[in-house]
């Protein structure tokens, strides 16, 4: 830009913009050429845009990390396409090699650009503010202040600069001042903070862990690996030594919207728990919910989901109780039409049930039994009963939410209200729908990187704001025989130095703008 002569900032030539040296013949010069290409601003820019484009499939294709059920559904619906998706890692875009390659290259490019630039900036900072350019009056907006005693005026100028908080350097013939060093400092802070954020995310992934567990009212769990339904730990997570707290769910309450607008939407979740920091220590009552996790021993406990667990009592043909428990049913829709399975291995022959729990039950002409409101206003349970072999003896782990009916025979179908008992055909026993409990699904997680990520994100925002808003400028006061010339340059978008120059000139004497037509020409170059 014409108004920003480069001469005064020549020590600050942008290393990101440097020209790549022509490729030589040797391996070393090729490597050097590649490196300078990689660390050029243009490459960084293209990598940045690639990163943005590469993220798009992560929102279009279901991701294993955020929605594994949707991935399974997609694979079932599109078996052939899925193979290709799998090959390109499209079900886990953000952990895929090609996505990682882009951001690692980007950060490598960033480092290669940043380190020389930081070194250069530091050297420049030590030397600055440097001596004035040879002809100060050639700069735009320079002022010529007539002075009878130029040495005194220059001294006064130095005082003015110090008072105005410029970084000042003085020599017998000139005074130099600089402001806005934080523009580049902020730039450096911002980019190094991004590296910090990446490191913090990595720390969280490697050193953190998280587990999910389902608790029914009255039920509890203690924080050991075996008690979790699902658990994932980073490579360096210390999972043998989890904090020894234990948790018991006393009560869970939900309010649903009953007005016309958004009918059935949840309005409030309150989970009352008893929590004990270690075995033998007194338990404390605590209430938690969404947006309000429990923190204990550096671990956070989040409320993730909820549902209903119908209480079932099964008696065998002799009237002996062979099953008495609340069974977790999984919500299928917004009105909590919930599906579940009951397995009774202790009866002879074994019994199995598939069921639907409906908090507000209605029999729809087309859809069959369905719930029309999520609150338990008129709960109903529909069971289909099976006898035979549940297949539990094979030793293979079974999904508790699925019934393998290969060796089972369906013996009946029944809808029940709470308190009702269904006498199974052929004297196979009876099922009592005793009532229901609520269950919550809880996520327990430790993320050692989270605090660091937050810290670096804050420094990144501060740094970027400095680099965008701080105006960087230099001024010089140079003595001649009967006058002091006040001139300066500004660098960066929207920066200008004219106001500073006018203020300085006004402080040290009555000024006349330096009238140098040649100088104007020079500016227009």
């Amino acid at each position: 830009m014409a108004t920003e002569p480069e001469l005064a900032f020549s020590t600050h030539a942008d290393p990101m913009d440097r020209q790549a040296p022509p490729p030589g013949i040797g391996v070393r010069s090729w490597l050097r050429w590649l490196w300078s290409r990689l660390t050029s601003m243009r490459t960084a820019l293209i990598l940045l845009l690639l990163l943005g484009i590469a993220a798009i499939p992560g929102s279009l294709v279901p991701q294993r990390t955020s929605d594994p059920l949707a991935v399974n559904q997609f694979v079932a619906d599109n078996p052939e396409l899925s193979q290709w998706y799998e090959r390109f890692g499209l079900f886990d875009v953000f952990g895929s090699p090609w996505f990682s390659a882009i951001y690692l290259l980007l950060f490598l490019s960033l480092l290669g650009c940043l380190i020389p630039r930081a070194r250069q900036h530091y050297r420049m900072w030590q030397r600055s503010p440097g001596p004035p350019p040879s002809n100060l009056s050639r700069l735009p907006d320079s002022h010529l202040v007539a002075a009878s005693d130029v040495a005194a005026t220059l001294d006064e100028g130095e005082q003015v600069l110090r008072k105005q908080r410029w970084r000042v350097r003085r020599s017998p013939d000139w005074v130099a001042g600089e402001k806005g060093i934080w523009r580049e400092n902020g730039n450096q802070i911002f980019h190094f903070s991004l590296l910090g954020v990446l490191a913090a995310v990595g720390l969280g992934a490697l050193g953190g862990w998280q587990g999910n567990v389902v608790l029914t009212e009255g039920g509890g769990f203690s924080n050991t690996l075996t008690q979790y339904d699902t658990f994932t730990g980073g490579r360096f997570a210390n999972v043998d030594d989890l904090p020894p707290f234990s948790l018991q769910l006393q009560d869970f309450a939900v309010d649903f919207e009953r007005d016309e607008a958004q009918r059935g939407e949840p309005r409030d979740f309150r989970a009352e728990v008893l929590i004990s920091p270690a075995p033998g220590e007194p338990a404390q009552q605590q209430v938690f919910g969404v947006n309000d996790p429990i923190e204990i021993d550096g671990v956070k406990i989040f409320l993730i989901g909820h549902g209903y667990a119908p209480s079932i009592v099964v008696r065998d043909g002799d009237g002996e109780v062979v099953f008495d428990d609340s069974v977790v049913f999984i919500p299928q829709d917004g009105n909590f039409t919930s599906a579940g399975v009951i397995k009774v291995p202790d009866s002879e022959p074994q019994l199995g049930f598939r069921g639907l729990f409906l908090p507000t039950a209605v029999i729809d002409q087309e859809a069959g039994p369905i719930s029309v409101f999520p609150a338990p206003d008129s709960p109903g349970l529909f069971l289909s009963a099976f006898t035979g072999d549940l297949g539990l003896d094979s030793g293979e782990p079974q999904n508790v939410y699925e019934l393998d009916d290969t060796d089972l025979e369906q013996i009946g179908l029944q809808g029940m209200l709470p308190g009702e008992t269904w006498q199974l055909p052929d004297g196979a026993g009876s099922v009592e729908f005793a009532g229901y409990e609520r269950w919550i699904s809880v996520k327990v997680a430790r993320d050692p990187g989270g605090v660091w990520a937050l810290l670096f994100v804050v420094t990144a925002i501060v740094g970027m704001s400095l680099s965008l808003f701080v105006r960087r400028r230099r001024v010089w006061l140079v003595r001649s025989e009967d006058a002091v010339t006040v001139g300066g340059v500004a660098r960066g978008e929207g920066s200008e130095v004219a106001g500073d120059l006018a203020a300085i000139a006004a402080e040290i004497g009555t000024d006349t703008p330096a009238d140098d037509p040649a100088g104007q020409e020079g500016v227009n170059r």
Partner: protein
Amino acid sequence: MESESLAELSNALVYSSMFVMVLAMFAFAASFAARRSPATAVTQEVAEQVPQQVPAAVGGSADVTQPEAAPPPEPVEEPGRKSGNIGMALSWLSFVLLFGGVLVRGLWAERVPWGNMYEFSITSALAVLGVFLLVSLKRDVRWLGVFLIPLVLLTLGLAVTVLYTEAAQLVPALQSTWLIIHVSTAIVCGGAFTYAGVVAGLYLVVNGAGESGWRASWAARLPDAQRLDRMVYRTLAFTFPLWTFAVVAGAIWAESAWGRYWGWDPKETWAFITWVVYAAYLHARSTAGWKGSRAAWLAIIGMAVFWFNYFGVNLLFSGLHSYAGV
């Protein structure tokens, strides 16, 4: 009963704001059509804003700097100025009406009016209009009205037809102070991104418009390319840290609501893409070969990505950001 009358009042305010905005749009269109060669006016403005640039901009010719030294006794009425002023006045009126509509909506719902897509949309429309009016306090942007107002009207039109829902209480995940912080900053950013995107589009029209054709005739009615470019940059340089903050605020909120601060939910993914595009814009402006048109395209893509994240992700994808009443 009282809440029903509040509902009617809010809707009436939004509709009257739209009506006034249509009038403003016509006034701006008339103003734009009447504008012919704003060269003199623009030069004068540049002279006022950046006096040190005048010699550089016009080669130091004496006659152009004259008005500054000796203001002419009877300034010539710039064509289209009057209808432009009418457009600005109507814009202010529609802003006040819309502000009232959003405010009453909040009073009706007894919470901040950012609980569903209808409410986000009318507040976003308010933000776009607000950024336009804010800039108009410092600069002459009457030429921009005819391009920006239709977008605001489109947003409002979608809001009242497709997205309208009755006010209701919030789902538990939204019941947080972060709703106020995260959503309000995101909406302000949306207003600024839209403003910058439209100006960048006009930059592309003006830059290299040639001597004849529609682009040349538009260019004659618009500020010069350098000024448009600078307007885009200033807006985005201000908005980028704010957008970063909005995303980070969302991440902090996500941590307490969902148990993780970043999970590549579709909304998060597109917020990240938006951030990347604007980061690229800021870097492009200081990279040889990327200044000018390419940077302007990035500003437009950024706007498109932002709006896709808002409408597209809410309506097409299912994710944690999908709430009732869309």
